């Protein structure tokens, strides 16, 4: 600007007055402070959990809580293995071995020997299979149903939509006993399929309604243009509707995943061994000789990671998605 003194050249740069000055600065500072405070409140429990997972037993129960401590993998050993108590001299002999694996060493230091892997990994795997499959199912079915409800004159459309919504109206726990009996007779108890079906049904109402909102927002002229341009209805759906609904689909996917991943009551009721998921199994690690806090924290940490990865991977779509389309690009 200095090179073009006013008078010789037209002033072409306008400055927005509300973006400068002390008032704007104060507003920005307040925004930052509030965001930081919120982030802190949200992160404290998680960081507490992470820290606890790496603490030794004595550090966990000490009061006041220790902020500085020597990290140990004791919690993870407890989480991932089954162990037996061994006599002192055997433990010493084990520790004397030069090539003793890390986990065995940690166990031996506490006078224990590892007898085999625990069920934790299997259960996280069950969670992954069940939550993953039911999320994919409810998102795919929800997208197709939402598209049909949005675009076609489905007979009894409003009744059907209300019916779908009404499945959400009573707390699921109320129907645990009927579902338990049904599943027993159908042979779905303690099967992956049983929980996948159940979570899909729970999530479907949510995904249909949420996605219908997103698809309603896409003008139908786009598909009509594609139809005229030589595509079939299905191709138009794939090439024109899906790419534009992707934010909504991603948001729905994450919501469904979080529900299925966290579900506790039905998993507890309907599974025992084969299909048991992580949520009902983590509390059972309370242990016989006192509460194994570090193992629980480590288990919760491992349980947290997959959702974090998915949410992180889809974060670009989520900002618009979770505001239910209210935030335009």
């Amino acid at each position: 600007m200095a090179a073009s003194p006013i008078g010789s050249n037209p002033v072409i740069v306008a400055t927005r007055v509300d973006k400068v000055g002390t008032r704007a600065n104060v507003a920005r500072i307040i925004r930052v402070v509030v965001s930081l405070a919120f982030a802190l409140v949200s992160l404290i429990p998680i960081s507490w959990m992470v820290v606890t997972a790496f603490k030794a037993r004595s550090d966990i129960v000490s009061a006041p809580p220790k902020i500085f401590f020597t990290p140990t993998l004791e919690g993870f050993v407890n989480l991932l293995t089954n162990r037996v108590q061994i006599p002192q001299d055997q433990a010493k002999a084990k520790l004397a071995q030069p090539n003793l694996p890390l986990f065995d060493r940690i166990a031996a230091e506490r006078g224990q020997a590892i007898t085999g892997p625990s069920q934790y990994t299997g259960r996280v795997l069950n969670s992954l299979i069940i939550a993953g499959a039911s999320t994919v199912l409810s998102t795919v079915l929800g997208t197709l149903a939402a598209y049909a409800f949005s675009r076609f004159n489905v007979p009894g459309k409003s009744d059907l939509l209300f019916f779908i919504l009404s499945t959400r109206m009573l707390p699921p726990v109320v129907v645990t006993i009927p579902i338990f009996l049904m599943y027993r007779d159908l042979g779905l108890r303690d099967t992956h399929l049983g929980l996948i079906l159940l979570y899909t049904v729970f999530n479907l109402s949510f995904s249909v309604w949420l996605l219908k909102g997103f698809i309603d927002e896409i003008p139908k002229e786009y598909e009509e243009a594609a139809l005229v341009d030589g595509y079939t209805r299905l191709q138009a759906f794939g090439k024109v509707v899906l790419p534009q609904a992707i934010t909504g689909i991603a948001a729905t996917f994450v919501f469904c995943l979080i529900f299925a991943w966290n579900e506790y009551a039905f998993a507890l009721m309907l599974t025992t061994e084969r299909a048991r998921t992580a949520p009902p199994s983590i509390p059972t690690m309370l242990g016989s000789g006192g509460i194994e806090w570090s193992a629980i924290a480590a288990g919760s940490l491992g349980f947290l990671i997959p959702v974090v990865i998915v949410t992180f991977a889809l974060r670009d779509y989520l900002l618009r998605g979770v505001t239910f389309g209210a935030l335009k690009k």
Partner: protein
Amino acid sequence: MANIELQQVEKRFGEAYAVRPLDLHIQDGEFIALLGPSGCGKTTTLRMIAGLETISNGRILLNGQDVTRLRPSERDIAMVFQFFALYPHLSVWENIAFPLKSQGERRDSVDKQVRDVAGLLQIDSLLKLRPGALSSGDQQRVALARALVRRPACFLMDEPLGALDADFRETMRSDIKKLMLDQRATTVYVTHDQIEAMAMADRIVVMSQGVVQQIGTPAQVYHDPATLFVARFIGSPGMNLLTGTRGSDNALNLPGGNSYVPPPVWQGRVNHIEGEAVVIGFRPEAVDIQPDGALTGQIFSVDLHGSYTMLVITLGSETNVVQARVNRDDDYQVGQQVRFDVKPDMVRFFDPKTEKAVS
């Protein structure tokens, strides 16, 4: 490239007619405008030709082939939508190439065709952009390019200029007209703007409330409106319409104590109208103001339009109004009494019962 034939095509929603049975034969290379106020069924007719709307009854033939039951993709048509319907997630290049890709063409051939048509519409510098980054005029050009690129049998356009700024509309209007002439393309063009229809179309189909009022050249619908609706709707302002009753000696009693004798060629035909009432119609430019004119009225307002002046003349009461187009240099005062004649070759007569023109 193609002729289109609509035979008794109708569209009903339950008992309600959106389009009454309609016959229309569109010649190869013809530019047809469907003109009417909103809700008259013009867009529905267009969508039926496109195959986006099912047909309740009747047949549509494209080049003699019955396409009534064919999907839009099987009809070899291209459509330009009112709000362009450019795919927002695709670049301009991809948008234009979209119809070609449905036919599985090779990429280098697609690219050549896209660049050709983009050059024709002067949008070759925009090919990498997304539609959202374009002005509405450029979006319009991209929409046209997407329609042109496939060289379809006919073009359907649904108010393609409706979303443009007024000053840009005129340029686009002549551009589209020229483009369609160069392509020798059969075009069906929906609009509610009569100026657009008059300027562009070979023939105009005037519709109202699902009924075709008249099919004719712009000159025909202007000079010989088939119904009272067309007489009012075409032209700005529309035709002057005065209701008279039959008096003695072939004369018609008009409002304000005026008496009018139709030109001799009309007298016999006017007498065929059942009932006493007759509507006479004439354009503002048919009014001939002169001292010994047969009709008398009072000037209600003098409106300057630049190249001409429009007089609003009341006959008796303010509900009976004649608009007269006069020279801009002539001097008229509000409240002044004037006498005028109607040029005999420019007067038309209507039966108020049937609303149809006397022919």
